[in-house]
């Protein structure tokens, strides 16, 4: 029993550790990436004893240290308690959403079968959406407690944007849930281990021998849903091109104008943790989660008949490695987006959310339903 609790605690600790560190690394990648794209040398000031070559490691330590040693300013006319609560809520909700995302299949150690996921809940993805919907409070409360016009404007823009895209995000995953018939993310990841061939009827001979050889990943089954989900997820993290809540040329820094020091660090880390969670969701729902194409529990089984047998530990290591790589890829994609596209206007943000994503997501649901019935 103590061992069971220990395993759970280790998994929870690992996930938190990974999310926080990845968030820190992303902060560095963002600055290094901006330097690269703007053709300059960037993020090279953090050095230990004149040794700046390890920029990543140094920045990872120097960044939080710098934030923590700055003055933590609380506006005297604001609400001190809520001003403290807001960044805590943002970081907390961002950290705990990763709980239901599986980072591997099962790990068998002797008698023990460990599910590589912090919590296997039968409501699965709804947990992510429920906790995510609480994220709005962080910015609204923070802005209100700051007693600043810019903050409040940023929060109104931000919360209206977040709730608008929450609808589109929820609708876009319905298709995936219909295909796999479950809310559990571990089941969805397992379901993507089969080939598309197995989902097609016998009569579709040509399709079975061509497209059918692809793994049944969400991206092949629901390409439109992925585009919609990706757009909505970027809008939810309030990053460029959807960074109107903190548009620096209009609102200085939006809802966190009056934040500094440790509390700003919490908003900052929370934003990057949200990026990591969004990447984890994209991976799990649309890119097979921890699946490696054609890798089964006992090794590779290629569709042309060959097979390579691998020991269990190697398979598990490959799967966890694949999941990590995919997550890092989608994090990088979101960072890259920031330096590639200009900011939208607010009316464009609202039009995209309500007049394009929402009807398209509904259409996707209907088409998916008809196709599933036709294939049955």
């Amino acid at each position, binding site marked *: 029993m103590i061992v069971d609790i220990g395993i759970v605690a280790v998994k929870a600790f690992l996930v938190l550790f990974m999310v926080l560190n990845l968030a820190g690394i992303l902060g560095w990648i963002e600055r290094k990436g901006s330097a690269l794209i703007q053709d300059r040398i960037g993020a090279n000031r953090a050095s230990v004893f004149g040794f700046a070559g390890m920029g990543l490691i140094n920045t990872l330590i120097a960044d939080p240290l710098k934030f923590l040693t700055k003055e933590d300013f609380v506006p005297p006319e604001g*609400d001190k308690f809520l001003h403290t609560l807001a960044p805590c809520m943002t970081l907390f909700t961002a950290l705990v959403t990763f709980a239901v995302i599986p980072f591997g299949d099962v790990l068998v150690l002797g008698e023990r079968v460990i599910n590589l996921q912090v919590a296997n809940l039968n409501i699965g993805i709804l947990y992510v959406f429920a*906790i995510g919907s*609480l994220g*709005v*409070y962080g910015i*609204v*409360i923070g802005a*209100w407690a700051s007693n600043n016009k810019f903050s*409040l404007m940023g929060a109104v823009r931000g919360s209206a944007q977040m709730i608008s895209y929450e609808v589109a995000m929820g609708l876009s995953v319905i298709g995936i849930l219909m295909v796999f018939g479950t809310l559990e993310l571990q089941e969805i990841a397992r379901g993507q281990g089969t080939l598309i061939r197995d989902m097609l009827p016998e009569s579709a001979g040509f399709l079975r021998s061509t497209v059918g050889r692809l793994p049944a990943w969400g991206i092949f089954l629901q390409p439109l849903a992925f585009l919609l989900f990706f757009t909505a997820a970027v809008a939810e993290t309030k990053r460029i091109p959807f960074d109107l809540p903190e548009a620096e040329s209009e609102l200085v820094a939006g809802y966190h104008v009056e934040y500094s020091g440790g509390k700003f660090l919490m908003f900052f880390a929370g934003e990057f943790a949200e990026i990591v969670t969004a990447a984890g969701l994209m991976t799990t729902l649309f890119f097979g989660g921890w699946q490696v194409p054609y890798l089964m529990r006992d090794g590779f089984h290629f569709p042309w008949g060959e097979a390579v047998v691998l020991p269990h530990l190697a398979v598990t290591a490959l799967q966890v490695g694949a999941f990590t790589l995919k997550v890092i890829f989608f994090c990088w994609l979101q960072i890259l987006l920031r330096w590639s596209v200009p900011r939208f206007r607010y009316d464009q943000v609202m039009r995209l959310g309500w007049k394009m994503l929402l009807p398209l997501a509904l259409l996707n649901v209907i088409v998916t339903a008809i196709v599933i019935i036709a294939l049955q």
Partner: protein
Amino acid sequence: MDASVILFYVISVLLVLSSLMVVFLRNVVHCALALVVALFLIAILFVMLHAPMVGVLQVLVYAGAIMVLFLFVIMFLNPTASEPRRKLWWGFGSAAALLLAASLAALLSNGEAPADPVTATETFGSPETLAKSLFTDFVLPFEITSVLLLVAIIGAVVLAKREP
């Protein structure tokens, strides 16, 4: 005592406390946040009663959507954060609360409460079970819900678009 029973009492005490805070705090925004906490605690109670689907929808809809609307209205429409005391409403509220307490007391003292209220199985409140009963046994109420939502949409637009 069982761990889940202890957890139940801890959650219940917190729930009663946060509900009292909704009523007694002076700042309206604080009240709204106390209500969010109360709704979240109720969701935990649902989960402990093997109804995780209801619990998560409680958070998604009440704490995540309805309370956001509440906060919107409070924060961005009403600049006076604390409201003045109103004697009449206090009297009305107390009377209503007393009436409710009396009827609850009558109900609870009458019947025999089951010794172990948590008799539902693991799958009782699962998404699948809930979906099955909603989409086979309760089709008509489900369809009527859409009419209700339609009326709500039209009402919202009519109210917001009214010329001053």
